């Protein structure tokens, strides 16, 4: 059965919706990366198994649905009963029978599986009433947690490919570009370049061939937005690419996705296969002259291959190194042909913009940055997970409302945004609206959407050191300022963290940063010193404490801290086996003794002590 | 204008003035370079002949060069070697059937006759006119 016309598409949608009426209630099991890792597949299989054995009214095996990421990864695996919105967290296989016999059979709520709001201690039955979800506005992530990722039917039933149909049949390519331009959609991969302008430039270049590329090379540590979309709703990306291809006049597209995302690769292959089977990819799509094909290019996971020119080289099978862009890749890109490259999340937004109009999208967010943005909220925040918020929301709202504040109510210290080449913002910047321009002005950047929350136990020198080390390893190694400069910048950060630096080293680092920014070939190098620059900008005192006082205020830098046992020690013996270096001795019920000569400051004793008896100074 | 080297071996005395002139006109860092021309014995003790690049029409050196470093200068007709392009793979040296691409080991270069930009000094200085650079007519079979 093929979908060759809009009528057929609509007919399929009607049939599917009618079919779904048989299942008014569903049990949804989140199978995003986080929940899967915590055993979500076992929950889904277990629910089916249980429903096979017991006859429950309204629930059959078909009503158990695995979906993409629901967002609240912290509390996974998640189980939702729809349409009620009943929300169970941290579900274990042993809970399955109880869920089936109580909740599904008798509508009884199992209190212990409900979400408890940390601030108030109140339990919440429905996920729509949880702060984490209440403040969100899901556009790019609209289908995540609702549809089965491997089902084209689910996507179509939910209004999928209607955007493509409208673009192909009711709009000229020019009107599509105009709509995207007017919507103010800016590149979600971090650059923030207006998508409409990019498409317009590409469409205007004289060429027989144009390429539409999708950047799925998400490489920031702690970021998983694009992964969640590719794994949870691959068709939204493909539909966005199809619309882009129609707009710029392309017949061939590539999705560049890293091999480290095996499920994303699998889902995309499957989605492409489904589309080819249905005729939604190939020649004369929906009965028009428009033909388009998509291939997948699998990357080996180099961070630099997320950079446009390196990505194109990698797709072409060459070494993934950026090239100088005196000719932009939108004019001369893949195989020297004009190429539009957008990020996964950008494409996922496009079908909605076409369906709901530029004005609708523009109303969300701020003047300069319209729409929403997905973030992966991680670090020392209570609710870690995948979120999508309107642009212009403040960092404070994200951390304290959606994230429910810092773990253990420790003081907030900094939030790292924009991935390794982004920056750290302190408490004083928490009320800044989150949009492309404000974050850049504050010395960080939007980036692709990683957000790492840090508390007072985080050392900013250590953070800078960590991200610099990442960049030293992930630099492509082509140009000298990035390859050698970042190496030396990292070496100087290590020197500070080791307590061996002098104040002149800070000047040296600032001067070197300047050269790296001015001299590097690509964006990775030019933003490479950011981990240092943004931390020195807001946390200079902490650097100086390391240099002048040889002290790490956060108690992290090993060379500058000592562990001591205080008189709260109950002599429980727990720390003695924990110490791999045999530095702690003592008898039961007597205060233990720590031998400083043997101590390597590994922190194992601190981690196991339940009596707060280890001091870090 | 089609100017060619005209070699008249019977006039060559093997005085090597051509070689000297060439070395000085192709100096490297102010010192004489490797001469692109030198007289060789033409078979007997008395007979000499100056051997120099013939700037072939379908030249083996051009074909052998994988980085396109040898190209004809349309004004002089010389096949000129671009030193900045040459990667010294020695393909032209090995391929020239007349041995006229020469390795200059001292300066790590490959050299060949470039007709001195149109007025070859070797011909200019040849005392016996055994070597001349002049317009030719097709019947002159001594031309090379």
């Amino acid at each position, binding site marked *: 059965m093929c979908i060759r016309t809009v009528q057929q598409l609509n007919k399929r949608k009607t049939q599917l919706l009618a079919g779904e009426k048989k299942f008014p209630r569903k049990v949804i099991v989140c199978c995003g990366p986080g929940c899967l890792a915590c055993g979500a597949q076992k929950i889904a299989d277990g629910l089916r198994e249980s429903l096979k054995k017991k006859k429950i009214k309204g629930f059959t095996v078909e009503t158990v649905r695995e979906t993409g990421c629901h967002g609240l990864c912290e509390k996974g695996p998640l189980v939702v009963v729809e349409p009620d919105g009943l929300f169970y967290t941290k579900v274990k296989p042993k809970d399955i029978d109880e869920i089936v016999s109580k909740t599904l059979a008798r509508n009884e709520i199992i209190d212990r599986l409900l979400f408890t709001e940390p601030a108030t201690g109140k339990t919440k039955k429905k996920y729509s009433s949880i702060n984490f979800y209440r403040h969100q506005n899901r556009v790019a992530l609209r289908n995540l947690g609702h549809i089965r990722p491997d089902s084209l039917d689910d996507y179509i039933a939910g209004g999928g490919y209607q955007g493509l149909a409208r673009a192909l049949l009711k709009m000229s390519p020019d009107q599509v570009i105009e709509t995207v331009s007017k919507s103010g959609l800016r590149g979600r991969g971090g650059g923030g370049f207006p998508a409409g302008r990019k498409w317009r430039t590409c469409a205007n270049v004289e060429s027989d061939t144009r390429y539409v590329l999708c950047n799925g090379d998400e490489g920031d540590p702690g970021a998983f937005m694009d992964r969640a979309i590719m794994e949870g709703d691959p068709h939204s990306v493909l539909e966005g690419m199809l619309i882009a291809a129609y707009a710029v006049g392309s017949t061939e597209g590539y999705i560049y996705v890293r091999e480290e995302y095996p499920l994303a690769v699998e889902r995309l292959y499957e989605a492409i296969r489904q589309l080819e089977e249905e005729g939604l990819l190939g020649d004369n799509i929906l009965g028009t002259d428009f033909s388009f094909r998509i291939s997948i290019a699998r990357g080996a996971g180099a961070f630099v291959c997320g950079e446009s020119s390196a990505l194109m080289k990698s797709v072409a099978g060459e070494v993934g190194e950026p090239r*100088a862009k005196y000719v932009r890749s939108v004019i001369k890109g893949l195989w020297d042909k004009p190429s539009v490259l957008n990020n996964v999340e950008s494409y996922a937004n496009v079908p909605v913009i076409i369906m709901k109009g530029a004005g609708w999208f523009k109303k969300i967010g701020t003047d300069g940055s319209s729409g929403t943005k997905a973030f992966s909220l991680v670090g020392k925040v209570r609710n870690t997970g995948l979120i999508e918020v309107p642009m212009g929301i403040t960092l404070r709202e994200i951390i304290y409302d959606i994230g429910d504040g810092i773990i253990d109510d420790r003081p907030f210290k900094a939030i790292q945004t924009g991935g390794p080449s982004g920056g750290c913002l302190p408490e004083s910047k928490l009320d800044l609206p989150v949009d492309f321009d404000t974050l850049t002005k504050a010395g960080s950047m939007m980036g692709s959407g990683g957000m790492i929350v840090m508390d007072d136990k985080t050392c900013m020198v250590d953070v800078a050191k960590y991200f610099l080390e990442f960049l030293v*390893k*992930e*630099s492509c190694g082509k140009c000298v300022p990035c390859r050698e400069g970042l190496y030396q910048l990292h070496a100087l950060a290590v020197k500070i963290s080791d307590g061996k630096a002098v104040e002149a080293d800070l000047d040296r680092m600032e001067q070197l940063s300047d*050269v790296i920014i001015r*001299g590097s*070939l690509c964006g990775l190098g030019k933003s490479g010193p950011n981990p240092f620059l943004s931390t020195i900008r807001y946390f200079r005192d902490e650097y100086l404490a390391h240099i002048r006082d040889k002290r790490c205020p956060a108690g992290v830098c090993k060379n500058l801290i000592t562990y001591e046992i205080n008189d709260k020690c109950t002599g429980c013996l727990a720390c003695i086996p924990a110490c791999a270096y045999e530095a702690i001795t003592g008898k039961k019920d007597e205060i233990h003794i720590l031998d400083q000569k043997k101590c390597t400051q590994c922190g194992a004793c601190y981690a196991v002590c339940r009596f707060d008896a280890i001091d870090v100074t | 204008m089609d100017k060619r080297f005209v070699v008249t071996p019977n006039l060559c005395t093997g005085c090597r003035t051509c070689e000297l002139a060439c070395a000085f006109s192709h100096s490297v860092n102010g010192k004489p370079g490797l001469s692109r021309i030198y007289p060789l014995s033409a*078979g007997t003790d008395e007979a000499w002949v100056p051997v120099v690049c013939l700037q072939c029409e379908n030249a083996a050196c051009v074909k052998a060069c994988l980085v396109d470093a040898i190209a004809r200068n349309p004004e002089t007709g010389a096949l000129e070697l671009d030193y900045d392009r040459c990667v010294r793979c020695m393909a032209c040296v090995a391929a020239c059937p007349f041995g006229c691409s020469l390795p200059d080991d001292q300066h790590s270069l490959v050299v060949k006759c470039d007709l001195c930009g149109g007025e070859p000094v070797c011909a200019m200085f040849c005392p016996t006119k055994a070597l001349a650079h002049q317009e030719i007519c097709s019947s002159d079979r001594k031309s090379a």
Partner: protein
Amino acid sequence: MVNLTVNGKLVQADEGEMLLSVIRRLKIDIPSTCHHDAVEPYGACRLCTVEITKTEWNGWKNYVTACLYPAEEGLIISTHAPEVIELRKTLLDLYLARSPGAALIREMAAEYGITATSFQKVPDGDNCILCALCTRVCDAMGFHAISSVNRGHGKEIAPPLKEPPPDCVGCLSCAQVCPTDFIQYKDKGKTRTIWGKKFKLLTCKDTGRPTITVEFAEHLSRQRNIPADYFEHDHESHRRQLALTLGKLAEWDRKE
């Protein structure tokens, strides 16, 4: 043709001509390690960075590598602006930390007043400055025998799997273009060794002197239609034969 200003001097250049070529034509000395005319500009060493501006940019300046920036109408270029000098000094300083033994780097650094690095010495540094001239030239010649492997600070140049490269013909171009003479090879008798691969050298039938490798000659015959017998003699032998031929012609001439 476009008009631009280099260090205050008005010059003309072809549109699209790279600035480095314009600057070198003016005999202005700016350093660069990764540029070679046989290959496309690469922009890795960043030493040829210059400051550019235009009157209409209202004082805004940009720093670009001359090898990769095409000439544009009205461009004002400064090849030795203080910021540029500082950039080059720092780059050479960084180079010295990694490759203190490379003569080229030492000379360039000395010209900018640097004799020793102020940075931490790179523990596993060597004389390879990763300009990638070797791999790019190898690619340009159509062999693709070697490539850069790994990335970041651990990047190096190597044949596939660090085994003798199957596609190498032993032409030595990589070693010849290496600006720091880092690529080692050995010619001993009729054998050449490079990248761990052994080659047999052709020898002249008359003089017995070695010329190029068997593989390279075969490649040239096959790909470039050069008769195989051209490679039977070395250049001196070829010359002598030409002299003898001309001598014979002259003899006939005398007899006529």
